[in-house]
């Protein structure tokens, strides 16, 4: 699965984008976050304030209980500050 990061989530993870093979046990966004936190210290730091993280699945906003289904891209970012 292709994973993208924006703003301070991107800065903490240290990459803009990465492709990760997901264990079959991962069904939802929340599962994915739990998995990412185990990868290394950077990922753990990025997802430390889990409530502050927003998620998009194939460029649509979703909640963390959303099923990953056959989405090709998931993105993590802080609350938006455009406008």
């Amino acid at each position: 699965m292709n994973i993208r990061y924006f703003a301070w989530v991107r800065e903490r993870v240290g990459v803009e984008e990465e492709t990760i093979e997901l264990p079959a046990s991962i069904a939802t966004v929340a599962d994915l976050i739990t998995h990412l936190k185990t990868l290394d210290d950077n990922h753990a730091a990025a997802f430390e304030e889990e409530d502050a993280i927003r998620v998009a699945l194939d460029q649509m906003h979703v909640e963390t209980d959303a099923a990953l289904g056959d989405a090709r891209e998931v993105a993590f970012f802080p609350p938006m500050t455009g406008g």
Partner: protein
Amino acid sequence: MPVTPLVRVQSEDFDLQAESLRLTQGRRDVGALVTFTGLCRDEAGTLAALELEHYPGMAEAELTRLAEEAVARWPLTGLTVIHRFGKIVPGHNIVLVIAASSHRRAAFEAADFLMDYLKTRAPFWKKEHPAEGGSGAWVEAKTADDKDAARWT
């Protein structure tokens, strides 16, 4: 039939006059045109620039979804949303929303709605570059913006 909104995400500046004329010129059905321009401000004199990061693809898609919701809710004759990204210095434009309608209430409400929703849903993030140099901080989302967006539900 609802109009098709014009949505653009770009680094270059926009032209208020040209974008307004696009929605009125050669027409007889537009009675009200409301424009909202959001600018980079710096009252404290501590800001060199804002850096606007965006999610390419999703920014256009989400703005289009919001704009389509607006044209479905209000009887508009035209709707334009332009959001810039990249480095923007104080006094310069960030975002433009233009709503045209036969009647003023629809034009006001649609523009107001779009700005409220755009603030909380469009994937853009602002980082401050301080005037005194060094690395800046990310602008934090305001709970006031969430409340503003909740006015329309």
